[in-house]
């Protein structure tokens, strides 16, 4: 399979970097794929970056996060790399938190992030080592 476009961008692992990294992914993606896939890529990037900043970088760090996008002939690969020694990984196939609108106290206020990633990406791979982690997400166009 031939890689047709490769793109990567890096920024400090801070909360205020996330929107900029997402915007860079959105701009790179929207030139090559559908609006739906562009949103799925930005959504997965945002949730992954949130987890890294909050958990691997404990709220923020000047260590870099690098986000990459490769557009191939029938798939798009998103990679997110950090340099935290104890990176956040988490399960690859968590279920969406159950919603019971009639039970106010049980409505979940969190726990959506990894489930959103699992729903929107077609495959998820997380590799963590002493020098950080590399998370790879593969996407395909989805027809309505």
């Amino acid at each position, binding site marked *: 399979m031939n890689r047709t476009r490769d793109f990567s961008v890096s920024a400090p692992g801070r*909360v*205020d970097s*996330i*929107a900029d990294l*997402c915007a860079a992914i959105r701009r790179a993606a929207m030139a090559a794929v559908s*609006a*739906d896939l562009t*949103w799925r890529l*930005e*959504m997965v990037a*945002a*949730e992954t970056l*949130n987890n890294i*900043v*909050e958990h691997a970088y404990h709220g923020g760090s000047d260590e870099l996060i690098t986000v990459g996008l490769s557009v191939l002939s029938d798939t798009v690969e998103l990679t997110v790399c950090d340099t935290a020694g104890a990176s956040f990984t988490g399960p690859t196939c968590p279920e*969406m*938190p159950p*919603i019971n*609108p*009639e039970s*106010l*106290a049980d*409505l*979940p*206020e*969190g726990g*959506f*992030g990894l*489930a*959103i990633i699992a*729903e*929107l990406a077609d495959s998820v791979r997380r590799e963590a080592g002493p020098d950080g982690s590399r998370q790879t997400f593969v996407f395909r166009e989805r027809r309505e």
Partner: protein
Amino acid sequence: MSGEELNTPVLVVPWSRLDLANAPKLRDNGLKLINECTRALIVDLSKVDFIDSCGLGVLVSLTKRVGGKHAVTLVGLRDPALSLIRLTRLDEVFRFSDTVLAAAPAAARTGKSQ
């Protein structure tokens, strides 16, 4: 529209993103706006084009604080943010409206019925 209907608090989200960076500010603003007597809340999301799980969490948190199912009306929400609400099945929790004026009467009825 009666004065009572217009008394439903309206929380405007002034950002294009409701995400990890902004969600805590929205929670703070929402908590300042509502009190123990508030039974309905309108959240104007017409400027928002991206919501992440942190933004969803704050909307759920405000819903629980105000009073539960359909107590919060989301105004001006459009795709792809609307797709995220459906994906998480939170569309069963919120009420939706195109404009604040259209949302106010139903929000006021929700407040009265609880």
